[in-house]
């Protein structure tokens, strides 16, 4: 050490939170005496360091004593690191020269032995002092922001986000895998509690997104590759061949009228209805251009037919069309790729797929939808019989260790909505089998009460089995729902005509791949992880990548819209700033020491490490680096160093924690 640092140590009482257990006076006197050799010139204790008076105390010392480093022993850095860094900044000391030592969460609150807690506090401070000596003055990184935004997923969350950004005057690319935007919401009949017609409220938004001058709609398209970093992403998008020239097509519909090939629609109609080989998924589709499904089109299978081409008034059919790869530049990305419905086949005892009149929630949505295969008639699988008794099973695939442990959040309300629709349209008797009723939003509990008044039966119990094995009189031809009513303790056999499985929500089957593509992470369940579950719910650990809607976790339409708008607002804020400041905690490669062994190359999940074939050295792109430090540890040549978490800092902290920095006087045995 050439220059001796001047360090100030500040020990906080936090009222009695710390002082009640840790002898703060003793700790500060100890630090002043024993850490002198490390450069401690002043050690103080104070009632509340985070108060403005406490902060001023530090600032005064920085100015008067010429402190070059500050150690605050108080609460967790997650609470007040920013506070004390700012205090230092206010006194013209680089904020990164301040170290916060947690003696509250890590000592006074978790230990009862006062002596041990005080000793531990000393060790923690000693570690902090040893570490802070090697801190460097850092400046945040400035990165310019491209004003365009990519929104992946054209469900309600993605549509909302796209419109918000486009309305503010910035370019948006909205990418959707299916031929039309709209997402799951387009499949629904009514939305719960208000019982608005889903199409009625969604269609105007879809049209708005479709016509917006600032929105480039890329349907039937998927993101192939993402390069770059916040402010400067380069994204490759595969625009799959529609076999229809968009600039010629008017969406008149003659092609699908004339197409002779009927195909069971497993996506939009969940197998309940059919479409043609050339089709738009539903009448209000946006964009209006159809798609030829090459797997089922007779021309692509047998080489003849071309009925659509013959009848197309504008010659828009183009069988030779090929996939296109578009490369776009964007500054930020919103992932709103939504969810998959739980596959009810997996719960074999509920008989879905085996027992005809067991329906899933999405099937029921189509059944009750006026534009659906039955024209909105709620009938049994034979297509004509109206059920007299309907059982609705909650929590199918949710809150169940065998499938998904989490609550899917929407099933209770969805089930209540189904119960209402069945009751209203068929007059049938309705049973709801639930574990708990969860109605945690405005107007939801009221809706539940409305259902209670309508005479819906509520049975609290997890359904054991749905079976067609009749035993008792009156059960003939029915489905028997076997359940324990846990409120009365009785086993019930409820004969019904129709059972609806209120299936939970699951992450998209390819959620992990998508996360990897965009350099963010999934929880063990498969939902994408937000930066902070409470305080930063729409951004992710990767700067510039935001998430909205069910991709982050199960939620209903209002919550999805909120997240879409929130993500948009976050991005607009960034675009307005024109550049983004990044935490300077970054890794860098010493080019002289790197000999290009390439061990670090795929250690980085953010693709921040680049290998230069010509010079045979690797380099870290500071804008892509998230500062985890894994490559620093992995580099066999010690050529990668980490700002803010260098080897020297950590090794010195270990020395400090083990009190090896304190000159041993007579203590040596």
């Amino acid at each position, binding site marked *: 050490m050439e220059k001796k640092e001047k360090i100030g140590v500040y020990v906080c009482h936090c009222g009695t939170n710390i002082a009640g257990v840790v002898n703060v006076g003793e700790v500060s006197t100890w630090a002043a005496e024993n850490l002198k050799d490390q450069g401690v010139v002043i050690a103080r204790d104070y009632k509340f360091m985070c108060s403005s008076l406490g902060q001023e105390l530090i600032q005064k010392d920085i100015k008067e004593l010429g402190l070059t480093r500050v150690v605050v022993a108080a609460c967790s850095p997650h609470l007040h690191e920013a506070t004390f860094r700012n205090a230092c900044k206010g006194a013209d000391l680089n904020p990164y020269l301040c170290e916060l030592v947690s003696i509250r969460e890590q000592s006074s609150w978790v230990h009862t032995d006062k002596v041990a807690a005080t000793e531990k506090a000393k060790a923690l401070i000693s570690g902090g002092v040893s570490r802070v000596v090697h801190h460097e003055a850092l400046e945040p990184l400035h990165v310019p922001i491209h004003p365009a935004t990519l929104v992946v997923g054209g469900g309600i969350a993605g549509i909302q986000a796209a419109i918000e950004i486009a309305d503010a005057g910035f370019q948006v690319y909205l990418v959707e895998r299916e031929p039309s935007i709209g997402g799951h919401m387009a499949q629904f009949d009514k939305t719960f509690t208000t019982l608005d017609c889903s199409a009625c409220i969604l269609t105007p938004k879809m049209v708005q997104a479709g016509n917006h001058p600032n929105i480039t709609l890329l349907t039937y398209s998927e993101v192939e590759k993402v390069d770059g970093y916040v402010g400067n992403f380069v994204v490759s998008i595969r625009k799959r061949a529609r076999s229809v020239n968009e600039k010629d097509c008017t969406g008149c519909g003659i092609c699908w009228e004339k197409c002779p090939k009927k195909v069971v629609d497993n996506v939009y109609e969940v197998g309940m209805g059919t479409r043609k080989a050339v089709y738009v998924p539903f009448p209000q589709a946006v964009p209006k251009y159809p798609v030829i499904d090459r797997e089922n089109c007779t021309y692509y299978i047998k080489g003849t037919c071309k009925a659509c081409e013959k009848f197309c008034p504008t010659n828009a059919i183009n069988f030779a069309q090929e996939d296109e790869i578009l490369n776009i530049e964007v500054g930020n990305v919103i992932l709103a790729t939504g969810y998959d419905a739980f596959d009810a086949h997996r719960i074999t005892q509920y008989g879905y797929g085996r027992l005809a009149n067991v329906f899933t929630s999405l099937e029921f949505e189509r059944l009750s939808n006026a534009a659906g295969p039955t024209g909105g008639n709620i009938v049994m699988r034979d297509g004509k019989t109206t059920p007299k008794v309907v059982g609705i099973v909650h929590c199918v695939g949710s809150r169940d260790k065998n499938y998904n442990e989490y609550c899917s959040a929407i099933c209770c309300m969805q089930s209540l909505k189904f119960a209402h629709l069945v009751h209203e349209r068929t007059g049938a008797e309705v049973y709801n089998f639930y574990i708990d009723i969860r109605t945690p939003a405005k107007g939801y509990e009221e809706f539940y009460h409305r259902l209670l008044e309508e005479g819906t039966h509520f049975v609290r119990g997890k359904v054991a089995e749905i079976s067609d094995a009749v035993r008792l009189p009156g059960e003939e031809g029915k489905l028997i729902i076997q359940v324990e009513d846990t409120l009365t303790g009785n086993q019930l056999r409820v004969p019904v005509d129709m059972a609806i499985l209120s299936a939970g929500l699951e992450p998209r089957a390819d959620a992990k791949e998508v996360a990897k593509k965009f350099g963010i992470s999934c929880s063990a369940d498969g939902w994408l992880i937000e930066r902070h579950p409470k305080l930063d719910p729409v951004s992710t650990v990767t700067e510039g990548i935001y998430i909205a809607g069910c991709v982050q976790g199960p939620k209903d339409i209002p919550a999805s819209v909120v997240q879409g708008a929130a993500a948009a607002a976050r991005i607009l804020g960034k675009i307005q700033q024109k550049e983004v400041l990044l935490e300077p905690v970054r890794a860098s490669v010493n080019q002289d020491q790197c000999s290009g062994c390439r061990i670090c190359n795929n250690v980085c999940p953010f693709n921040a490490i680049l290998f230069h074939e010509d010079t045979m050295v690797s380099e870290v792109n500071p804008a892509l680096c998230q500062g985890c430090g894994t490559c620093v540890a992995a580099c066999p040549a*010690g050529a990668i160093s980490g700002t803010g978490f260098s080897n020297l800092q950590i090794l010195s902290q270990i020395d400090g924690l083990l009190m090896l920095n304190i000159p041993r006087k007579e203590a040596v045995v």
Partner: protein
Amino acid sequence: MSKPKFAMYWAASCGGCEIAVLNTNEKILDVDANFEVVFWPVAMDAKYKDVEAMEDGSILLTLFNGGIRNDENEHIAKLLRKKSKILVAFGSCACEGCIPGLANFSPSRDITDTAFSTISTDNPDNVRPQTHYMMPEGEITIPTIYPVLRTLEQVVDVDYYMPGCPPESHQIAAVIDLIIQVLQGKAELPPKGATIGAGNSTVCDECKRKRNVKLIKEFGRIQLMHADPDLCLLEQGIPCNGPATRSGCNARCPSAGAQCIGCYGPAEGVQDYGSRLIAAFASVIDSEKPDEIDKILDGLVDPAGQFYRFNLAGSMLRAGKSAKVSGD
């Protein structure tokens, strides 16, 4: 004007370093031409007493090879330190412990047992060496062995480090040239503490093999694998220490088809050689399942030997627990 004085000493080492010096061929004559050799037990007769009688700092250059294994080694290390202006830790043993340092895995008791009471030793009465023994002529002594071997810098202040087991002869020749140039005022000495006679990066820098991104599914021993002659050995699952090892040898082993075993010691700025390799190898194992990882690691038959063959005494831990703790 008298010639500057030169000394060379071997402590716990094999003698390979001196052979490497002689392998500089005619360059050795330059040493003689420019220096007065005052002490070099392997090459000439000299007494410790003569050295003790010298003035402090009177030897210009001392090349010290070997680790500090016993009290005699320590005594001479301290003596030569006092008498020399420039003390060079010469060769891997002096720099980082090298092969003699591997004894640090075991307590010294086990080491003497191995030497005096194994099946191949003809020692029916289990005679053990005594440090002091009375003979009719008087008491004789032999050096006392220490529990662990230390590197030179762990005992005395060292000016320069010259790695290698042994240092490559062309590197020794270059260092001799440099010092002669310094003597003639044509060059300057490197800063104190520098490593001389070696490169600053790693063996990979000098290795001609083609390198790709690494994902290792299996480690294996080189003699059991059919290694691609042009491809990075580590990529092929052969535990090559090149990525962490200091350059300077012209990647001799990898060029000859064998993996680097690390004799040139840690690259510049590396604090614990083995740690670097542990972290690096583990980072590029291509599995996220503990059982599978264990299976892959089984391919590294002797990890501590792999990572600390030359560096144990100079590493952060310096020795195994039994050698360290049982200081009886």
